[in-house]
């Protein structure tokens, strides 16, 4: 029992790192653009399929392939923002942007079905199947590499946000769009680039997700987005640090529950979400009032 528990905690932390990467992208997009990107889940799957296509057809290493897929997803994100999100105005902007990103999600899902079919696939590489003995556990290399990559990317995002001029303009836009505009921040540019960055990290997240999970198909995006949404709301919308903490905590909790109730472990996310919102509607680390209209 004890070893099982330790194992669950280790798995939870490793998995939490990857979810943190994806959730940070989502919460960053929310903070700057004030929209919830429902397409984030299927974009992760798109990133995974891009890695899949590169490794199957070009026999490119998965991590090397990221040098192509991450910029590609960045460009896709910027195009989507400029074409479909930016033109939305007016009082219904909130619901409209949600629906627009939902529409983008089902278009991408449909396209993935057309190109790759409904069968589950997995990403393969030597380090996906091999594992290393660490602290008495056999841990797959991919989980360790993936965790390291996720930590590096989250640290990179942090550095970008808190150590660069561009990061300051992102944070300024998150705090007050109008004020940021007044001091000379090009908020449209910031919004497009932030959306691009938020989507670009899904390429890395998707690769790790596709390699370490039990396979994926175009439909996997729904499961993923519902978890990610639960995570960022739980953390408090727009809170980056909160998203990191919530990801690691919830994934650990999920893998512990998984020991006893494998079918219900995902319900942990929603149960926690409902519970937290009953007590604190702004989420655990929410700085802005979720109730404000």
């Amino acid at each position, binding site marked *: 029992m004890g070893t099982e528990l330790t194992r669950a905690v280790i798995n939870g932390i490793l998995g939490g790192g990857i979810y943190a990467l994806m959730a940070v992208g989502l919460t960053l997009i929310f903070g700057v653009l004030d929209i*919830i990107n429902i397409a984030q889940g299927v974009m992760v799957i798109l990133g995974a399929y891009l890695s899949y296509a590169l490794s199957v057809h070009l026999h490119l290493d998965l991590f090397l392939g990221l040098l192509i897929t991450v910029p590609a997803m960045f460009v896709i994100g910027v195009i989507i923002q400029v074409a479909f999100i930016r033109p939305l105005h007016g009082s219904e902007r909130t619901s*409209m942007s949600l629906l627009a990103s939902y529409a983008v999600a*089902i278009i991408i899902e449909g396209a993935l079905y057309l190109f790759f079919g409904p069968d589950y696939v997995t990403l393969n590489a030597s380090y996906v199947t091999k594992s290393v003995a660490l602290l008495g556990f056999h841990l797959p290399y991919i989980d360790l590499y993936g965790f390291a990559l996720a930590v590096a990317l989250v640290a990179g995002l942090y550095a970008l946000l808190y150590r660069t001029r561009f990061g300051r303009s992102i944070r300024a836009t998150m705090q007050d769009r109008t004020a940021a505009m007044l001091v000379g921040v090009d908020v449209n540019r910031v919004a497009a680039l932030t959306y691009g960055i938020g989507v670009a990290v899904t390429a890395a997240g998707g690769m790790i997700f596709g390699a370490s999970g039990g396979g994926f198909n175009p439909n996997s995006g729904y499961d993923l987005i519902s978890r990610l949404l*639960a995570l960022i709301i739980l953390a408090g919308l727009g809170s980056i640090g909160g998203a990191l903490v919530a990801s690691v905590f919830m994934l650990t909790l999920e893998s512990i529950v998984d020991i006893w109730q494998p079918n219900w472990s995902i319900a942990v996310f929603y149960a926690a979400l409902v519970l937290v919102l009953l007590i604190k509607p702004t989420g655990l680390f929410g700085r802005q009032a*979720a109730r404000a209209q």
Partner: protein
Amino acid sequence: MTGLASPSAGTAAGARHRKPAGWQTGRATRVGLLVLALAAVVIFPLAFTNQSVSTIAFLTLIFVCAAVAWNLFSGYSGYISLGHAVFFGSGAYAAGIAAKDWQITGSAEFALLPLAAAAAALIAVPFGLIALRVRRHTFVVITIAIFFIFQLMAFNLTSFTNGTIGLNAPFLLWDPVSFDQRFYYMALALALGTVAISWLIKGSRFGLQLRAIRDDEDRAASLGVRAMPVKLTAFVISGGITGLAGALWFFFINQVLPQSGFDPLFDLTVALMAFLGGLGTVTGPLLGALIIEPAQQYLTTQFSNSYLSQILLGALFLAVVLFLPRGLIPTVAAKGGGWLERRRGRQGAPARAEDDDGGEDGTDAGSEAGSVTEAGSEADAGSVTGTGAPAVAGSGESSAPAATSKGPAS
């Protein structure tokens, strides 16, 4: 039918002394068209007995119910729910589980329809109490999360739901043609009833309170609208009707699976129908369902796989959001209204200006007053963004204060 009604209401309100004449012509046309449309939908299954046509007709009516029911909560209150499949699936599963446990056979299954509606309405109470505490994005996300909980339950509570195998409806010993016809008329009755309820709510004080909540919940509350009970009541009514539609759909399709009863595309499709037709209008979701569902079914049969039709649905959705953000009915009403205004040589320009102002969140007193006023007027496409904006221009100043004070008092 309403495309004609709204402009007439708009011009009528614009010039009070002309109101009776314009209103009566509009009304006569409206009643005439309504009778014609009713006759057409009643005769329809007798004229077309082809089974694929009658299946599409039935499904379209089910979606009319679902879209109108969705709109009478989400459209009126502004709380966009992407979790209404919870009610649809719960209605279907409630009927299926009851039929299985009580060994109900044949047409006795229809006695379970009220039970399905009650089950869905009952689920809507805790669902609403949790979700309606939060607004905007968070509300949408909570509805999605609760939706996934229900799908998960349908998969995992195998002793009730049979898991991935799903449930079968009792077998009906009807020949195919009369099977389709009877289901068609049941769905038609349900659809007409739903539209009637939506119409009644819209014209009522309750509907006014809902729209006051949509425009500015805090202000509505400060004026005495008890927001939570009002929102929750609408949510429960909407959920109950959706559950009823789900049960009828289940009897027709004969089988419910976790992924078909609790289908994420259902949520999106229903919202798309309301948005396409015009959010918060009575006839908008009806029109949206009549356009989208047949188109979707046709595309699915045409392309033999549903993926391409899924892509097209998404593309259509994007097009609506980008180019028709207010929906067909309000857009046509505004265009038609403006055209009529210009034709009659009245002040088209101020009316248009007010129209544009109305789109901005109801923060200024003018647009708020306008939206509340509309509840009292005949305008069919009543929303801040939508409708007979010309009516706002004309009557907003004079009657708005009275309506504002009258509306939220409870």
